[in-house]
């Protein structure tokens, strides 16, 4: 049989396959060069970039939980200027589209980030992180209400012609309402889920394990929550959904595609197995071949209920 078609279209981007890293778990790509072919990915998604350099939260920043990972990195990154100067040159010579994830403390910062990234050579799209649980200002504050989220995306929409992917939080009463809000405000896609708010306790020291007290939960533990959010949102919005949360294997990725995700992002899995994405892409292809499916798009949203 012929090789199955793996391309998907997403927010105007053509991805050679539907697999990309989840922001913050893949650095700026370089760290994984020895482990997989970056050019084989569907897209590259950067760690969140902020306007100014962000020092991040005090350690410890990671805690293992049953089948999960709590992190409280706090968006540590060198800031937009250093990103453009030191990271973009490497990223722009790669084949997959580069999606830059941005995070601000205020609406104005998001707008400024979007404005300055518009037209930068090699930047294919913006992922707007309105769902980081690990920062005091911004982040989740914008992602918690459909109105705030919409206001922010509308403001960003005005200053950029790049496709906008709104990254949503599961820490809300109604994720569909937030998704509809950002869709109406002009987002070209949504990505979900960001991490669930959580905490770990060190019984011996009688303290939180994390220096920042609480953190964001990711990994296999959250997969059922993520799948449910993706399934609900994909049925209710017209724009494509990038699904993520606990994807460790090709089977997990296929489950998200069935639930309606147009593409998937792999996060915590990269931290456990640096070849995870390569194995997932190969596994997807093998599954399609085995089941005589010519085009990956045939399984997107094909869950029977």
């Amino acid at each position, binding site marked *: 049989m012929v090789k199955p078609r793996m391309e998907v279209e997403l927010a105007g981007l053509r991805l050679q396959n539907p697999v990309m890293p989840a922001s*913050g*778990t*893949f*650095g700026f790509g370089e*760290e*994984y060069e*020895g*482990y997989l072919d970056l050019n084989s990915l569907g897209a590259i998604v950067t*760690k969140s970039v902020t306007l100014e350099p962000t*020092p*991040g939260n*005090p*350690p*410890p*920043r*990671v*805690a*293992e939980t*049953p*089948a*999960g*990972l709590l*992190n409280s*990195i706090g968006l*540590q990154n060198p800031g937009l200027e250093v990103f453009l100067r030191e990271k973009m040159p490497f990223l722009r010579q790669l084949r997959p589209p580069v999606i830059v994830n941005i995070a601000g403390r205020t609406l104005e910062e998001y707008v400024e980030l979007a404005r300055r990234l518009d037209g930068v050579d090699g930047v294919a799209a913006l992922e707007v992180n309105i769902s980081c649980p690990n920062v005091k200002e911004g982040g989740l504050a914008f992602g918690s209400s459909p109105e705030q989220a919409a206001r922010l995306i509308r403001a960003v929409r005005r200053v950029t012609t790049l496709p906008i992917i709104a990254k949503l939080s599961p820490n809300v009463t109604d994720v569909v309402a937030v998704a509809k809000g950002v869709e109406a405000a002009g987002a070209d896609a949504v990505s979900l889920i960001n991490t669930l708010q959580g905490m770990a306790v060190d019984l011996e020291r009688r303290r939180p394990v994390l220096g920042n007290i609480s953190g964001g939960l990711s*990994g*296999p*533990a959250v997969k059922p929550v993520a799948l449910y959010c993706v399934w609900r949102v994909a049925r209710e919005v017209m724009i494509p959904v990038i699904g993520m949360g606990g994807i*460790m294997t090709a089977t997990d990725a296929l489950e998200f595609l069935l639930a309606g995700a147009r593409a998937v992002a792999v996060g*915590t899995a*990269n*931290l*456990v*197995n*640096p*070849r995870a994405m390569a194995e997932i892409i190969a596994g997807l292809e093998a599954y399609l071949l085995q089941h005589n499916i010519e085009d990956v798009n045939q399984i997107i949203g094909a869950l029977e209920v």
Partner: protein
Amino acid sequence: MSSLWQGEVVANTAVGPDIYHLRLRTALPGPRPGQFVHLRCGSSWDPLLRRPLSIHDYNPARQELELLYQVVGRGTAWLAGRRPGDFLDGLGPLGRGFTLPPGPRVALVAGGLGIAPLFFLARVAAAGGYQVTLYVGARSRDGLLRLETLQGLAVEVQRATDDGSAGFAGPVTSLLARHLEYKQYDGIFACGPRAMLAEVAKLAGQRGIPAEVSLEERMACGLGACRGCVVALYGEDGSIAYENVCSAGPVFPAEKIVW
């Protein structure tokens, strides 16, 4: 050059209270003392993360990696259950190792399991013609590990135990402090509990001896990608910033550390 491998367990034997010596057959590209490997410790998603363990020794001819570890939790308990013939999923060598100084006289200071990487350093330094003094501290004599294996090497071993059951009675840093009153070293290398490392850093700083210490922090990726494993370090200009233990360390110049 990917450094993901499957290593076959050759031996996994208890060598002290809850302490195991693991030998794995795997080909590593030129590991250096102070570097570590990152091991999966289970076959399900619980536990999820790899565990960092220092390279205790490596024999390129036999392609044999040695690790020395203490059972402290679920991951290491699982590891202790592995038997010869089992395979382990490993990543590494990772991180930056120790840098031996231009001068020949080096002091290595190990507290408890801190011997794990310093054993490798001692062997490599001795083979490289350095005059090596290895200070080893433990709670009591049965915590002094793997020293018999150093016999035959040009390594002077100085023992200290809290309970006085072997060697100097007291912390290994007190023994070091006494020796520093009359002995000269061109470099000091330490691994052990954080309080001990801080004390070594102070002693070395007072005497202007360059010192390197190996730090521990909770890790996820081990590759420098997630920024989960940071410690606060002084930069060139005296400012403080968070650096990755996994990729910028685990070995750092002692004077850079914000204790």
